[in-house]
């Protein structure tokens, strides 16, 4: 996962996931998105976003990790770590 091409590809796919849940955000806003900065990031959006990410990357987000996935970068790190492992 240290391969820059993989990293870029992962990031691109993750942007697509975020965009499907927050269609009003552009790519730049998505990369800096967090639960504080995006007004529509409520509990239902969180559940939908995590479901989309799980389906896209084939990862299972545990209940204990869920509360920590509150920004694009947090989700990105989580996915990168779990794909690698």
């Amino acid at each position: 996962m240290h391969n820059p091409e993989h990293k870029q590809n992962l990031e691109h796919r993750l942007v697509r996931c975020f965009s499907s849940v927050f269609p009003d955000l552009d790519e730049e806003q998505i990369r800096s998105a967090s639960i504080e900065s995006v007004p529509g990031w409520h509990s239902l959006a969180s559940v939908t976003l995590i479901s989309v990410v799980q389906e896209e990357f084939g990862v299972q987000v545990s209940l204990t990790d869920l509360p920590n996935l509150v920004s694009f970068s947090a989700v990105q790190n989580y996915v990168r770590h779990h794909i690698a492992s």
Partner: protein
Amino acid sequence: MKLIDALAVIRRPLPKDAPLLRVSLACGFTPLHLQTFLAAALRERPPLERIEVTTGLFGDLAGNIENIQPAACDVLVAIIEWQDLDLRLGVRNLGGWRVAQLPDIVKSARRMLVRLEKAILTAAASLPTYISLPTLPLPPLFTTPSQQASACELELRQAVSSFAASLATQSRLRILSASHLDEISPPSNRFDLQSELSAGFPYGLSHASAVAELLASLIRNSSAKKGLITDLDDTLWSGILGENGVDGISWHLDQKAPIHGLYQQFLASLASAGILTAVASKNDTALVQQAFERDDLLIDKQSLYPIDVHWGPKSESVRRILKTWNVAADSVVFIDDSPMELAEVKAVFPDMECLVFPKTDYQAFWQLLRRLRDTFGKTIVSEEDSIRLESIRAAAALHNSSNGEGTSPDSFLQDVQANVTISFGKEKEDHRAFELVNKTNQFNLNGKRLTESSWMAYLNDPATFVMTVSYDDKYGALGKIAVLLGRMQGKAAAIDSWVMSCRAFSRRIEHQCLSWLFENFSLQEITFAYQPTDRNKPLQDFLASMTTTPLSSDVRVSRADFSEKCPPLFHQAKATVNA
């Protein structure tokens, strides 16, 4: 469909004037992604509509159905899971799984099914209703090991089966097929415990998508094809009639030709449900006649009409059969064991579905039967279905008689002893009228199709009327062949929709319809919401013959014009008028 794709589908822009389909999704769990998948699956299927899926309260399936406001939605979808029958059959409530509690769980599930049945029947009286029975595995609460069914589990399943069997007899209720769902959504992958416990949504994404896809296909319910044309040699039977002789062809297991017997049995089943079945074969006519005399055939010769046998191209046979049936090529399936014959027919009729009969591949044959059942599947077999083929024979006989030399149309029609039976009123269970509106092309006022929900809305509108027309004469009964939908406006009637089966042409039934309306309601004028379509030329010709002005979107026929232009009518007209 993946969730990310479903989200994209439901956000696709729509034309501003796209009609709205309001779906009430009743379930006891959080509808979450099922709501998304259902909206997306409906958007993916024609007609193009804005989809609005509304839901009810968490944990109260029965209440959600009981509280449905029929005026506020077009379709009801009810999703039943085990926990809706008794909370102890779920995992979010810890009510106990002790042995002593099991009988009470069964008892309370039965009570809930009674309540649900009542609520569903009430809703279905006003709304097209679609039911998904429990799709999730029962939790491991029974004492038996999982490979052994426990008595309590069987009792629960029996209660649900009885409930479903009772509902399935209702014409406006559709039950999602559990066995079909099993094929596309493996039972072991359906339940998502984490999602259920964290979000109250028990379905895995792929299962939610599968349930939504099946529900959407039930709701959209694309119309079935009308006819099947089959080859004979190595298709309806095994062997070549010209080479093997009448006694050399076979279709039985002991002759190693069982799939041909199954195929005959299947065609007989289709024919008995009103599907037109005919033969196109390059063969010797006399030999074919002899072959059809064999008393061990599993399909009656009378069920196959026409039987078109000659040595010319098959497309010639197909053309003649389509003309006799008066149906379009895209409504028909052609089956032959020869890829060359299939290609020849397909080249002439590109819209026709041409399928190979896989005479040596039993698995492919089995898939063919399943595909054909889907292609010709119908929810209800009506009285008209049972007489359709007879009425086509009668139409052919009538056509041949009317072409006799020295017979004028008037004297011919006078001689056929025709009866026209008109029913003026609304019958909610009249599936045939709904079917006619949605299947008829040639004599069709404007080509508009109605969804089940818009049909019911029309019936529920006190300002509208429905007039249906049945016909019989000395050549046989045609059954219910015409439907007029409209509104009375003082001394005028406005016709919104008018269809008549092509089997009923050339009998002046269309004239009788208008004559009866003019006379029975003392009308001075009838207006028609006319629209030309690619296929409604017969209707156009009729309207043009009744008016003095060119056809427009608002055709008017006055009483005076009709009286002047209507030819003599010889039917015995009987009518029933309901309030």
